């Protein structure tokens, strides 16, 4: 495993910084791309797209794992608004260079000093993370481009039940 280049020792998964920052929370693995505009509630961070497999889940405080966003570029505004309102994700891990997600996080960092990291992972890392839905992850994305994800080895005890997600 590659060192993340940031404090906290070796990263379980190395990636590239798309938006610098740090955050931790329970992994929320999205099995399909999500449009933040129209697909999530800007005031609550809930996934409201009735066709999405994780419909009803909340982005708030979670480390999102997704291939990419989908659809409207207005999603950048919705993500920035969720970060402002404190109902946005703690970090976003992508497998595509998704400008819409990155710009939402970059704008929130510029405006509010809230640095939600957005990290590009390779498909293998994303797939391995995808099997750890609900585990606690800490994400650090450095301004030098190097990023890393560390998984808490302890079982994800104390998390609120998320009935619509796979165990």
């Amino acid at each position, binding site marked *: 495993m590659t060192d993340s280049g940031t404090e906290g020792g070796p990263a379980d998964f190395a990636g590239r*910084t*798309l*938006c610098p920052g740090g955050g931790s929370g329970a992994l929320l693995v999205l099995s399909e791309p999500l449009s933040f*505009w*129209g697909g999530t509630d*800007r*005031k609550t961070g809930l996934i409201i797209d009735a066709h999405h497999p994780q419909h009803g889940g909340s982005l708030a405080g979670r480390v999102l794992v997704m291939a990419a966003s989908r*659809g*409207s*570029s*207005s*999603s*950048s*505004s*919705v993500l*920035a*608004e969720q*970060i*402002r*309102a404190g109902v946005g994700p703690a970090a976003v891990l992508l497998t595509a*260079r*998704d*400008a*819409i997600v*990155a*710009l*939402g996080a*970059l*704008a*929130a960092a*510029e*405006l509010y000093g809230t640095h939600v990291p957005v990290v590009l992972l390779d498909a293998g890392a994303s797939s391995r993370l995808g099997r750890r839905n609900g585990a606690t992850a800490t994400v650090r994305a450095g301004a030098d*481009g190097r990023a890393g994800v560390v998984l808490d080895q302890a079982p994800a005890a104390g998390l609120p039940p998320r009935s619509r997600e796979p165990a």
Partner: protein
Amino acid sequence: MLDGGRGPGTAMAMRMVVALAGVLGAERLIPITGAHIDSCLYHGQAGLDFAQRLAGLGAAVAVPTTLNVSSLDLMHPGLVRLPPADAVPARALMDAYRALGARATWTCAPYQLAQRPALGEDIAWAESNAIVFANSVLGARTERYGDFIDICAAITGRVPHAGLHLPEHRVPTLVLDCSALPAALLAEEAVWAALGDVVGRRSGTGIPLLTGIDPAVADEDRLKALGATAASSGGVALFHVAGVTPEAVAAAGDPAWSALPAAAVTTGMLRAARDELSTAGPSAPLDAVALGTPHFSVREFGKLAAALEGRPAFHPGCTVWINTSREVLAQAREAGLVQPAEERGARIVVDTCTYITPILGPEERTVMTPSGKWAWYAPMNLGVDVVFGTLSECLDSACAGKVVRDDGQWN
């Protein structure tokens, strides 16, 4: 610019542009000749904070910049039913973008304004239908820009050298053979919207080359309908039509444009798209008709006026809504092309659009439209049922107060 030599507002915009270059893996920035901004549509406090921060730091656009639709119709106060909690910041957002030096065009069809970009110009446009029209029909070059970065590109006059700005990324990736579609079928904009639905689903984010279309039937309104729907059902930001669009004409005989994966488009596929774009059955009572998504052109007002000759007034229980821009409305009114619709009861909307902000009344539950984009988004945004049909089917239905189909237009 990053060091603040052109002021702190420009430095903030440049930080965003440079960060995007990093996200896209671009090695340098290139100059642009114009911008079109979609960030002026209100999606919450963060968007307003961003524009007001830039304006407060003294930033201004460095290139000619047009504005997309907003959430309000400033010419017809009271038409939009937004609560004050949203209407007040939505208005403040419009004011902030004017303070940044952008033109108050308030249209999703900036390509219908008098000044528009030329073949080969690098521009930064937002709004998916405007992006696909600029790339495909005008041959200008824009990536899929959106919120925050559109205004930052306008202020800095720069974008990352990436994506559709590079000629090698503008070559088609698949061929869709349309030679089986009768020319008479392609006389209706809605048929082009249905074709756009098929093109979007087949292409995803690829670049389709449509072949077998008679150049004589491909006018800008039809290409607009095709692109807007393909950008809704797929992520199409550039299409080519052999013998029609400028890069396809220039590339005739280019080996890079041959030996592509190909599929045929059939009349049956267009009928299937028509049915997929409809959520209500063909016998539904009709409450409204939605025209002008993307915004109506002067030529479309002319086509509408011609189609209304000999028709009675619209049914009192069915409101015909027409979205357009102020500039087009003034020209069409001057030419006497708006009055035939208004005399029959049509309502005009400017600055915004009936699918993105509350304009329709609570009693308007089933709506007919020839717009693939309206049909795609309105059920989700407004909770209405949609019947997708041609302009003449929509007008027959508006006069009857119920859905009237003419299957002869779809064969």
